[in-house]
């Protein structure tokens, strides 16, 4: 495999400033995607240095390379198996937490990666009296060490230049670091390494001694893949590992992986002690940490903590709904105007109908919520980047554990719309940080109950019609209903389909920071763009599909003839002078409405919607509602636009510009009971297609996709029927 000196990877712990460095290097020239087969985010960007273009690969932030999480597996694969592999790695280190950060560095070295140590946050470390002798560190480790302040852009070029030079010099691989892990482990490694080497077991990508160590560490991923490649030798290596484990257990009451970790820390410790780090023996919190402690003493306090938490969530919610409404109106007005202009220019017919009723109405309905979503994601980015999100998990864990979840489940829940306005697509994707498969699965399956941004238009519409005086309160209650459903269903799942014990919580509480402007903007833009892309592709296609389903097939010629006969009768009555001008107009309008009605009822969607009335009747849904909800399985965004289209297609008078809200308000069918029932159903029923696909992708099982589809439909139907029957 040829390495590429213009391809550099950036590694580092979470909260080491790795993302800040990556953003600084690449600016907006980033490409975010997914690694094939797995679902960890793949971030690449282009940096410019001394006139050359360098591709930077942002590895997922990890504490280790032990395959504890998908992120770690991905990081390992990118470094060793991707083609072309990166020529060198910039390891971004939080200088204030040097010892723990170097634990990842040791593992990168064990893997044989050419490494540049970027000692980030050097300014803070210095200001707090932490004395790091960079030259001594370089001397003892044999690595290029570059002081860095990523936030201010200091040292970035130096680190990159060093990495490029290193890549050219080393060809992408160096001799793996071989440290002693104690007599017992070393002995085992010495026996195993030549055998692995001889059999060429995975050695095309990984150093033999490293592989031997993975057998001792009982690394599931490597053991599995080695077993696939060479079952015999793998069994033998595993047996050697078991022998060592038994020996260590009986003599030292410890485990091979614990011994290996101890020796890694020992190696780091001996270097730091050897003149690199001065005066850091005791726990001496720096200013930033001391400030964080003060904040935490209030923010995580028994009574104040939860109060502040809910206060912040409610504030976010309130500002988004109230402020977001203003640009929302602008966008909505623009699409109304556009629809009018196009309508005036084009002649009547299916094409005009397709463009105004299908495309403009559909896409306009979706893009109208972009401002709201941007404000929402801006908030979420600030909470994430400031470090508060970790406190939320810390405060909430005890509660979440009761429902069989993890404190970190709150993140996917919030992104999915736990704070209304999220989206279950990134929400389901955000569950990747959850290591525990069971808690993760429960989170994936219940996150779609949250009030995502696409459901909000439905709630906003009906709340503004039926509960206008209490808008924020009712909207907030809906969000709480989403939470209740998610938590209760999760508890149910964790005691039935996905039973099992809880998994480790162990998590860092990063010091509070002011989020950087560029970080927040890039983050917000990424997520908004995800939403817009969804609108531009899936939803446009679905809008057209739904329009077609509502337009075709046309009624039979006999039916058309009947309407023509009615019109002829009206005309002849008019000529006979038995009808006034107004009466003629009214009668003609009735005929037109009936004709449109027939058109829609005759269409695919109309027939399906009508057929479903017998099922959805007890929940108070009419056929228009049914059509809209069917469309909503495709994408929740189209519920309102489909409802709009359903009613707009029934109207023929283009001058009569009644909005959907007025139409529903004046329609005797719509009562509070119908509205509540529909809102309950919208909140809880099947996730949209994109989310369903994500569920399939994240769980790697079709069965969970179908479970989400059918379980949620049944669950929502039952609750809607109860709501309607109680309220009507």
């Amino acid at each position: 495999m040829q390495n590429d000196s213009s391809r550099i990877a950036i590694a580092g712990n979470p909260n080491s400033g790795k993302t800040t460095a990556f953003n600084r290097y690449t600016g907006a020239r980033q490409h975010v995607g997914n690694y094939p087969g797995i679902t960890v985010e793949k971030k690449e960007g282009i940096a410019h240095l001394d006139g050359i273009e360098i591709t930077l690969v942002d590895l997922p932030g990890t504490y280790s390379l032990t395959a504890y999480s998908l992120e770690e597996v991905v990081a390992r694969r990118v470094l060793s198996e991707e083609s072309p592999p990166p020529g060198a790695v910039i390891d971004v280190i939080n200088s204030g937490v040097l010892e723990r950060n170097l634990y990842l560095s040791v593992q990168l070295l064990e893997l044989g990666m050419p490494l540049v140590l970027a000692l980030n946050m050097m300014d803070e470390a210095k200001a707090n009296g932490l004395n790091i002798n960079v030259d001594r560190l370089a001397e003892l480790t044999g690595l290029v060490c570059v002081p860095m302040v990523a936030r201010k852009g200091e040292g970035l070029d130096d680190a990159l230049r060093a990495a490029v030079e290193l890549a050219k010099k080393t060809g992408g691989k160096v001799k793996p670091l071989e440290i002693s892990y104690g007599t017992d482990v070393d002995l085992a490694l010495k026996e195993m390494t030549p055998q692995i080497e001889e059999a060429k077991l995975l050695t095309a990508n990984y150093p033999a001694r490293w592989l031997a160590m993975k057998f001792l560490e009982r690394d599931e991923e490597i053991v599995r893949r080695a077993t696939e490649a060479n079952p015999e030798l793998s069994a033998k290596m595993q047996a050697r590992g078991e022998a060592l484990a038994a020996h260590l257990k009986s003599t030292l009451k410890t485990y091979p992986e614990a011994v290996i970790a101890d020796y890694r820390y020992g190696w780091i410790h001996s270097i730091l002690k050897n003149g690199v780090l001065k005066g850091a023996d005791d726990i001496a919190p720096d200013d930033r940490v001391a400030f964080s402690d003060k904040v935490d003493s209030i923010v995580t306090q028994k009574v104040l903590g939860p109060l502040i938490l809910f206060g912040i969530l409610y504030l976010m919610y309130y500002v988004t709904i109230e402020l977001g409404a203003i640009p929302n109106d602008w966008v909505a007005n623009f699409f109304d105007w556009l629809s009018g202009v196009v309508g005036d220019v084009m002649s009547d017919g299916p094409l005009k109908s397709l463009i105004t009723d299908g495309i403009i109405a559909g896409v306009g309905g979706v893009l109208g919520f972009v401002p709201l979503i941007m404000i929402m994601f801006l908030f979420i980015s600030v909470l994430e980047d400031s470090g508060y999100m970790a406190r939320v998990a810390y405060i909430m864990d005890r509660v979440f554990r009761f429902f069989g979840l993890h404190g970190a489940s709150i993140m996917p829940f919030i992104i999915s719309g736990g704070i209304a306005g999220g989206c279950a697509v990134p929400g389901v994707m955000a569950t990747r940080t959850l290591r525990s498969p069971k808690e993760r699965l429960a989170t994936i399956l219940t996150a779609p109950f949250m009030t995502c941004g696409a459901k909000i238009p439905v709630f906003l519409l009906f709340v503004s019609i039926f509960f206008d005086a209490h808008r924020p309160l009712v909207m907030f209650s809906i969000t709480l209903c989403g939470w209740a459903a998610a938590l209760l269903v999760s508890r149910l799942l964790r005691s039935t389909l996905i039973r099992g014990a809880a998994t480790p919580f162990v998590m860092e509480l990063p010091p509070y920071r002011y989020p950087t402007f560029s970080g927040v903007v890039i983050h917000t833009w990424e997520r908004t763009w995800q939403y817009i892309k969804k609108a531009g592709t899936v939803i446009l296609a679905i809008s057209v599909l739904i329009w077609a389903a509502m337009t075709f097939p046309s009624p039979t010629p006999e039916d058309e003839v009947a309407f023509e006969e009615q019109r002829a009768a009206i005309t002849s009555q008019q000529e006979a002078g038995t009808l006034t001008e107004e009466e003629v107009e009214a009668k003609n309008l009735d005929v037109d409405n009936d004709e449109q009605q027939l058109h829609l009822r005759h269409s695919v969607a109309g027939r399906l919607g009508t057929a479903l009335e017998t099922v959805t009747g007890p929940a108070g849904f009419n056929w228009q509602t049914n059509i809209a909800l069917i469309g909503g399985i495709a994408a929740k965004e189209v519920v309102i636009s489909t409802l709009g289209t359903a009613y707009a297609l029934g109207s023929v008078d283009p001058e009569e510009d009644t909005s959907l809200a007025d139409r529903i308000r004046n329609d005797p069918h719509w009562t509070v009971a119908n509205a509540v029932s529909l809102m309950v159903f919208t909140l809880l029923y099947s996730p949209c297609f994109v989310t369903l696909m994500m569920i399939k992708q994240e769980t790697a099982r079709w069965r969970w996709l179908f479970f989400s589809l059918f379980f949620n439909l049944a669950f929502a139907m039952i609750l809607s029927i109860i709501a309607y029957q109680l309220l009507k």
Partner: protein
Amino acid sequence: MSDISITTLRRLKKGQKAIIKNISADGEMGRRIRDMGLVPGIQIQCMGRAPLQDPVALRLLGFTLTLRNNEADFIDVQASGT
């Protein structure tokens, strides 16, 4: 440095310092604990607890770590005064 005794991490009071003596967790739990820098010989300080008394927050090696009480039970420490 009064009141020296071996106890589990769960028993540490807010502000109390201690040295890690032994970690009895293996598998995933043990791996995660070690990845985060909790190894024998490290000095820690209990920073406080979440509103429902669980999880617990610790300071070690210059950063703050949080873990559940039932996870803290795997970790034996030698406690000193506050």
